[in-house]
């Protein structure tokens, strides 16, 4: 069990190049073609990365890049134009509202918060599609949110690895 305020250590400032790099990798991971059902169940790494930057480096990433990346995901997935854009806008809003809370919590609570954010943004996209005449694709639709929340600690550690202060006190 992590101690309180996971990730409260002071990080070196993230450069724009690094933010851009992580977002590019996240988009690439989302574009990666997977066989069969894995394609539907895969967690949205871009959403997780956006949450990370908003929560731990607030005021770096605005709505606009997230929204544009949402449009990119819409084109890539062939979903309605604006569906992921709206989903990511909701995600950004919730992350900005919650980030002061999230950084105070340990890893388990953080995962729960991330799960809530992911589920709400997915639910918004679901409502959009239902309104456009689609059927509810079953409860497996929310599996990516669960997997995304489970991935949060790993992604958290991975993104901040180059940002940690070089004190030599690193355990990992």
């Amino acid at each position, binding site marked *: 069990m992590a101690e309180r305020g996971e990730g409260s250590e002071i990080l070196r400032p993230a450069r*724009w190049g690094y933010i851009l790099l992580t977002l590019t990798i996240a988009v690439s991971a989302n574009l990666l073609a997977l066989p069969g059902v894995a394609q*539907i169940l895969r967690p949205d790494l871009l959403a997780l990365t956006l949450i990370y930057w908003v929560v731990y480096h607030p005021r770096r990433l605005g709505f606009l890049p997230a*929204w544009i990346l949402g*449009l*990119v995901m819409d*084109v890539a997935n062939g979903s309605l*134009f*604006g569906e992921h*854009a709206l989903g990511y806008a909701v995600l950004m809003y919730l992350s900005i509202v919650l980030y002061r809370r999230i950084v105070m919590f340990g890893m388990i609570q953080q995962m729960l918060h991330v799960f809530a954010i992911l589920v709400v943004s997915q639910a918004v996209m679901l409502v959009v599609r239902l309104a456009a005449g689609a059927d509810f694709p079953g409860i497996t639709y929310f599996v990516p949110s669960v997997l995304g929340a489970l991935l949060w600690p790993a992604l958290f550690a991975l993104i901040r690895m180059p940002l940690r202060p070089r004190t030599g006190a690193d355990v990992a």
Partner: protein
Amino acid sequence: MEYSPPPFFKRGPGLLTRFGFFALVSVALLVADARFGYMDTARGMLAAIVNPFQRLFALPADGLSRVAEFFVTSSHLRRENDRLRREALNNAAALQTQQSLAAENDNLRQLLGMRERVERTTIPAEILHAPRDPFARRVVVDRGAQHGVRPGLAAIDRLGVIGQVTRVFPFASEVSLITDKEQAVPIQVLRSGVRGVTFGIGYDGTLELRFMPVNADIQNGDLLVTSGIDGTYPPGLPVAVVSNIERNAAYAFARITCTPAAGVSSYGQILIVNAAEAGADPAAPGSPGAPPAAVQEQR
């Protein structure tokens, strides 16, 4: 792809205003796309940027399957070879009779003064991947507007109809599978000639034949082929096999489920059938073209 800090937001409107703005724009885009289909140009432009990357990131999965192919045993290859040879033989026999039948059919149609069946050109394409959209049954293929693909064309594989092209990009296009919830295929029961329409229900491997009267002449195992009356699907292509019929006198219609004939969700090569426009090749231009063909056949 620029991520310089947008100065507009630095000390601009409040959080809720910003969120409201983007949410509203999103909803406007959604309505424009879903209701009116206005977004195709914007989508096309973004797709021109995104598609090459998608092609790139489809390579690992491709490579994996190729590696898997590399390790197939020779017995497997021999079996496949046998199967293909048998298929080729059967096809050759069918093709020979088909040629004579087609010639005979042409003559008869000319005699009857009916419009000749238009020759359809086909565009071979390969399925790249299935997009990550849990609401729709679609695949992306590697042929697009540059290769002559247009929205609305039918897509078939070696076993039957798989779907219809619904979105075209310059170098790729999206095919909605017949199992998609919004896809309907006009069919005819091969055995009895009864016409109907199959609908996808959004699950793999199942179609529904709706609005068929309880006493319609349909049995389990009947092959459904395209009827061609829609002008999209060429007539006579296998669509599905009837797998279950529930006749209940309490309802006006029978509940008929079918299994698609083609490998609707398996990857591979497909043909996009370029149906000539229904009005473009009427009997008039066809008949002057027909006699030379007939002459050539006689030589």
